[in-house]
């Protein structure tokens, strides 16, 4: 079983490759989150808002990215998680989820995290603190 306590600053966690975003992914997220803003599910509404097509909820991408530390959940929990939304994520986009350990303070592991599109554009970027308990 993976253990966070052998990691050293600078280490990368194994990248997670997400499958291409589908409409059903976003319909499911809308239902699960209660965010029914139609620019995430209905083409006409997205176009009316000046978008080329529907876009993923920023929180869908942020939720996906949170999985990067899941292999360590038997050791602790996500104490803090903070991101900024950069590029929009469209249907068919594929996110690569990445994390690099920045520093360790006592029982807290600070990671730089990002979700990068297949084009190389950063969709979501931020920091996550995993606390060992």
């Amino acid at each position, binding site marked *: 079983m993976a253990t966070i306590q052998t990691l050293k600053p600078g280490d990368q966690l194994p990248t997670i490759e*997400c499958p291409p975003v589908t409409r059903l*992914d976003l319909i*499911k*997220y809308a*239902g*699960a*989150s*209660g*965010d029914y*803003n139609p*620019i995430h599910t209905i083409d006409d*509404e997205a176009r009316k*808002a000046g978008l080329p097509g529907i876009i993923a909820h*920023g*929180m*869908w991408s*942020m*939720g*996906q990215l*949170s*999985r990067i530390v*899941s292999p360590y*959940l*038997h050791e602790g*929990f*996500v*104490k*803090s*998680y*903070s*991101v*900024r*939304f950069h590029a929009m994520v469209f249907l068919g986009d594929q996110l690569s989820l990445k994390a690099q350990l920045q520093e360790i303070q006592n029982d807290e592991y600070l990671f730089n995290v990002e979700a990068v599109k297949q084009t190389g554009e950063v969709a979501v970027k*931020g920091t996550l603190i995993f606390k060992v*308990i």
Partner: protein
Amino acid sequence: MLEHLVGKKSNKVLTTVERGAVKKFAEAIGETHPIYTDREYGLKSKYGDNIAPPTFPRTFDYGSIEGLDLPKAGLIHGEQSFEYARPLVIGDTFYCSSLVESYVEKTTKTGNLGFLTLLNIGETESGEVLFKSRIVIILTETVRELMKHGNHSNA
């Protein structure tokens, strides 16, 4: 245009972390770790039950803030953060509320933008803060114009 709302708070909304809602949410973000959905695993864990994913509090109702009437379309989600004292466990019951923390307008290369920061809080009846979540919403000039007209027609 929203500076006058800084410091305003919403009503508090009684909230429970529901098992079915957590399961649906975990599935929707592609999360398969058993700590979120496997009852047996949860019961044996240090939390005594399943927990909620870190971004789950986005699903809660934080009440409404008097005078803050955001349009349904055209808002840009700029930033989001979550901070926990401990993970939320299935069955946890607490109060959710929201505070307008700040509002600033800045001229950027894409025009003059308004940055609205809301602080969402989950706290127990005795005032113990379980989590805090900040959301930065970006309001373009177009959206602010629409809001002005909306307010006008409601007056």
